[in-house]
């Protein structure tokens, strides 16, 4: 009996120990919906997938999903917040935003998130072929666009001081780096290098939702205009007009153009836009939601002063409607038409802007050209032709730009590069109607989260921000 139980004990112990040598794979489990970078970026097709991820990053609510178009107008004089509102962008309406502002932090971090996605594509070691070069070209353009936005919102305008502090230029992934701010000129150098490279690498046009060679050149024209480099701005704008194969939207097609929600393949007007479809959209945070009165929000209204600038026959005026909100007569913005099903896409670069850039860039050297190009726009909008000269012509070009690009986020960057004070209509709160060019809030603060995490930049905050 005793021997028997000893045997049992040995068997039991052996059993116990044999169990202990479980299969090794029992402890090796791979993540089910993610890949390690070496597998995620292994082939040409992977690169294309990663490129879509970079575009998706630009769709963030903090970027072209909503903030960029809204901030560009509310920080200037085009759009204001209704007294009846859901409290979005209030501090920009009041011009009292702080270093902890969520929209500021979002613009900063979402831009750098896109830059990382683009960097990884650009730095990929996959052997070159036409497709790979196209993807890399698009990634260069995306990176340039992200830096262009950062430098315009967070840094002194190039036209003011190219040696001022810009933003950190990051082109290689290093999670532990704590970069300081490069000079404004260095940021623009990077942007121009990227855009030149982008244009040279890209050979394909798919549709308006992706960068193409001429979309990159068109963006670069805008970059040069922003730098005050009128020669290069004009050259590039005219190159795009002459050689891109794009055609401008006309008075007849204007209403249909803005009602369209799908990316275009016909090279009409839209050179680059971010596509929001029925599935991948920002739902309640969609751009259209904050303007259209048919949803729950409709917080943002068109300044009555801007509305008054449109001639009655101007087709652009039909993108606005008048009514009452919060008990007050208001002008509603109907430029972005869809927040249900396929959503309105956000325009980033339009062909018509090339005429405006050409006009403004021609103005210092060739007023006749300036007049000619600006009327390429007025003539296609049913607006009266511009016939002024001298300083009045420049004002008219800038006004035409304001009318054409209203609610597309261009107004504040224009006021920055032109170093102008912003005078807002009485629609705005009385405490925030005159925003001098020297007002420290004209530059966004480096977000507090970045200061907390990055010792280098901690001492490089914009002036006026404590």
């Amino acid at each position: 009996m005793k021997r028997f139980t000893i045997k049992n004990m040995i068997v039991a112990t052996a059993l116990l120990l044999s169990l202990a040598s479980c299969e090794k794979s029992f402890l090796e489990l791979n993540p089910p919906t993610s890949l390690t970078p070496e597998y995620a970026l292994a082939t040409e097709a992977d690169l294309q997938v990663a490129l879509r991820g970079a575009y998706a990053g630009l769709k963030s609510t903090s970027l072209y999903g909503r903030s960029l178009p809204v901030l560009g107008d509310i920080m200037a004089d085009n759009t204001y917040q209704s007294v009846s509102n859901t409290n979005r962008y209030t501090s920009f309406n009041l011009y009292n935003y702080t270093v902890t502002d969520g929209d500021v932090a979002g613009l900063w971090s979402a831009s750098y998130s896109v830059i990382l996605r683009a960097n990884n594509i650009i730095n990929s070691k996959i052997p070159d072929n036409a497709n790979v070069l196209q993807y890399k070209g698009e990634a260069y353009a995306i990176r340039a666009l992200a830096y262009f936005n950062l430098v315009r919102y967070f840094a002194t305008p190039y036209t003011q001081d190219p040696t001022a502090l810009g933003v950190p230029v990051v082109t290689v992934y290093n999670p532990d780096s704590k970069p300081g701010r490069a000079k404004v000129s260095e940021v623009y150098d990077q942007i121009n290098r990227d855009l030149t490279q982008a244009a040279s690498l890209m050979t394909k046009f798919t549709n308006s939702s992706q960068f193409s060679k001429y979309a990159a050149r068109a963006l670069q024209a805008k970059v040069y205009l922003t730098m005050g480099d009128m020669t290069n701005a004009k050259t590039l704008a005219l190159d795009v007009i002459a050689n891109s194969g794009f055609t401008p939207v006309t008075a007849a097609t204007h209403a249909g153009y803005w009602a369209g929600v799908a990316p275009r393949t016909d090279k009409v007007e839209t050179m680059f836009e971010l596509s929001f479809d029925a599935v991948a959209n920002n739902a309640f945070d969609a751009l259209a939601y904050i303007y259209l009165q048919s949803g729950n929000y409709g917080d943002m209204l068109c300044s009555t002063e801007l509305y008054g600038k449109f001639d009655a026959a101007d087709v652009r005026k039909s993108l606005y409607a008048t009514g009452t909100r919060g008990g007050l007569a208001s002008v509603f913005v109907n430029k972005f038409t869809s927040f249900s099903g396929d959503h309105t896409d956000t325009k980033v670069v339009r062909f018509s802007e090339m005429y405006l850039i050409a006009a403004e860039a021609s103005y210092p050297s060739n007023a006749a050209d300036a007049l000619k190009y600006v009327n390429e726009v007025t003539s296609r909008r049913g607006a009266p032709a511009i016939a002024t000269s001298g300083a009045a012509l420049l004002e008219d070009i800038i006004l035409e730009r304001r009318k054409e690009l209203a609610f597309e986020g261009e107004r504040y960057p224009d006021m920055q590069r032109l170093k102008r004070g912003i005078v807002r209509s009485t629609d705005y709160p009385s405490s925030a109607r005159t925003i001098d060019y020297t007002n420290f809030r004209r530059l966004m603060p480096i977000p507090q989260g970045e200061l907390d995490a990055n010792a280098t930049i901690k001492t490089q905050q914009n002036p006026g921000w404590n």
Partner: protein
Amino acid sequence: MRKFVAILLCAVLAVTQVSAQNRTVRGKVTEDGKKPVANASVLVKGSTLGTKTDDNGNYTIAVPANAKVLSFSALNFETQEASIGSKTEINVVLTAKVSELQEVIVTGYGTTKKAANTGSIAIVKAADIENLPFSSVDKALQGKVAGLQSVASSGQPGASQSILIRGASSINASSQPLWVIDGVPVNAGDASRLQTTGNLLSTLNPNDIESISVLKDAASQSIYGSRAANGVIVITTKKGKGGKTKFRFDTEIGNSDVAYQNPRYLPLDANEYINITRTGLINAGYGAATVNAQAIALGEGNGINFNWYDNIMRTGSQRQLNLSAEGGNDKTTFFLSGGHFFQEGTSINSQLARNNLNVRINNKATDRLSLGFNMNVGNVSQRAPLSGGAFGNPLLSTYFLLPTYSAFKADGSYNYVLNGGLHNTLALSDQDKRFLRQTSARGSLSADYKIFDNLKFRSVYGVDYNNLEEDQYNNPNHGDGLASNGRAFAYYTRYFNYVWTNTLDFTQNITRNGDLSTSTQIGYEAQKSAGYFSSLQSQQFPPSLTLVWPASGASPTTASATISEYTFESQFASTNLNYQNRFVLSGSFRRDGSSRFSKNNRYGNFWSIGGTWNIDREKFMNNQKIFDQLKLRSSYGVNGNAGIGNYESPALYGFGFNYNQLPGSAPTNVGDPNLTWELNKPFNIGLDFSVLKNRVNVTVDWYIRKSENLLLSVPLSTTTGFGSATRNIGSMQNKGLELSINIVPVQTKDFRWDVDFNFANNKNKVTSLPNDADIVSGSYIYREGVSINTFFLREWAGVHPGTGDPLWYDTDKHGASSNVYPGANARILAGQALPKYFGSLTNALNYKGFSLSAQLYYSFGNQVQDGWRSYYLGSGFGPTFNKVKRQLNAWTTPGQITDVPKYVYGGNKNFQGSSTYNLNDGSFIRVRDIQLGYNVPKATLEKLKLGSANIYVRGTNLFTWVKDENLPFDPEQGTGSSSNLNVFIPKTVTVGLSLTF
């Protein structure tokens, strides 16, 4: 037979005669027939004559002729009497007193006697958690265990509860304890993905629990290795005791209402709102025309004064019903139970119903083999409203919706046009659907085989199965479904978690007389938890509000399924050496491997040593009268916290960053090839003693535990493309004192008064951070030398009496103040979110059949943040949302001293910005439980053929005292102490009946 009776009679007569004379009796007192009991008292009953036994247990005593009985007593033994009769030698075997020290307590992977226990283990018994109006056992633990902080953040029935044992030891990994139910380490916590909360433990009926052991120190925890650092809660469910089948029936019914409500934080009525808005518009500089237009637009003079608060709050009902049967024979015992629990929250659209079944069968197959089976199945059906800033959150709407907008139109239909685009939550409560249905099955199959009498093999296969079906419908007319013309979701979540545990238990006397003995266990355990998640959504719904399932949507927009798994493979051993129950030395070791750990650090070793000295068993204690029990314990060890994500170690690219409905990828995780568990090194020293004839029982523990290799979300410069990376870096320390006192001040035949008091003080400090640099996380800071979850905010300096402007201190130096919202450098350490000390005081009075008990829970020394203050107390910020009464104290005239700045439409100089104004002292005392009961007397019971009958009235959270009169909401707001407009925590009154038969 007759002859026998005659002899017996003679003998009795003889005894009577003999006992009339003085004589000597001698004998021996032993423990088990062999082991002598020294120093035992031998007394002649009814006299003062007595003696003591010598070292060999022998005694000699002279007894008077009329003496009839000798009484034998010794420390730790039951007193025993023996009739003297004609005997001259009386040998007595004393039985050890079944005192607390001999109680069997459940530990990890087994049981131990209290005398042999070296660890700090708190026991909660069934009676303490039965028939409480709580949806899960974690809520019932509040105040029951010294050093266990159980804190709610929502009054939603079925909401998850945070439990911290001996403080928080982690910043970014889990701080929640490991739950072990009948030997199975289970998945616990909040498993909801679509709904706001879904506590896995809510499917377990607390009435099915026999006991709960809370393992608080290294000696008790470390056997659970890499998952022990936050403490272990070991639950044992009820077993049948055998014998005649006994039934038990419990039922109760009641109502609940908001436990704490501050009148200063009730919303304004229409007049108040319009008045303050007019003032605000004027203060903002608007002209008369705009002021009038806007006041009218906001409802001035429209005759509506709708009280959203009263319409959304309600009295919730509460009921439960439990039935059990137990019985069996000497081979097989069983326990069966079924329960039903229903609870409504204190506001609309909040409820939970649970039904559950429980079976346990134990069988002795042979003398050596016994088998066990148990299965506990529960189903929960829960409705929970949205929380936080969601427009559909009823609580948000009580504070944000204007009283000048009614929920109803004149014709009685719902009004969909409300201020600020907010939703009519009364309509949504009616027309939208939000469901969570959860089914859990927890059970195990076990076999015990006695190889020798002192060697046992045990194998347990346990399963822990949870599934959650979360469904939601948002109607096409109003609210979240409007933009998509109606939408519906169906999320399915399943966790299948199995554990196979095999152990060998070995006990052996080392010295022949048994003075030194050992018990040792070795074991192996493999565990895998497999999560499966599918999610779908469709949009574009037909107009009928009865078509609420995704099948009716025309446009499917989400179709997703994925898995998430983890595995553990472990070997463990524990042993203790016991010398005469005086000295016990224990040790444990566990080697854990887990899929969660990186390849470079896949296995970890964890251990503990512990010792105890039962001083009361020492000879020198025999002559003292102070201590009835005296025990010193201490332990030290190393264990871990594996509460990290399943796939956190590798650098990752994620998918779903799609464009034009084609797949897109992006970096999602920085990764760390060395990522692993957090280390926890607890040291504990404790003293248990009883004095005054066991009328006062005290347990004191002092501990210090150091946590290292903390898993930290280290903030990165966002220019890298990432906001943070997870690293094993940093360390922390918790130290504290715990005290539990049980006193019986009065104990008579009919009356007993019990007092239980417990106290815990925990001092947490972060001891190292990467590069010694602060980590700021929202309103909190992690800084060396400072407690975790310390608020880090700009310092509020008051309202300028001349201008009514808000003032803040310019810098963190508490110097000059100004009306400019200061920069980041002005932030100060503004108090901690975790209380400095907490505990409870329970008084229980029993008189004949009546019982009255009351538990006070107290918690002191923390700050609570009002997460949404800026909207309803922002002095004009968000002006189209309603405000609270306290806003009426806004500054109006120069010279006025007030704590609320001038009301300016649109906001007064960033007063809404976060500052210490958002903080209130969170100290509170609450009558957690008060109960009056009556036990029906035996005589009546016999007539009714009942075993016992008890009727009671119980109040839960009936009274709450808070230190700060400006504390807006319930002081319990999770471990982060930040309110988020969750369903308010209820106070409940129930009446109940308990029968056994």
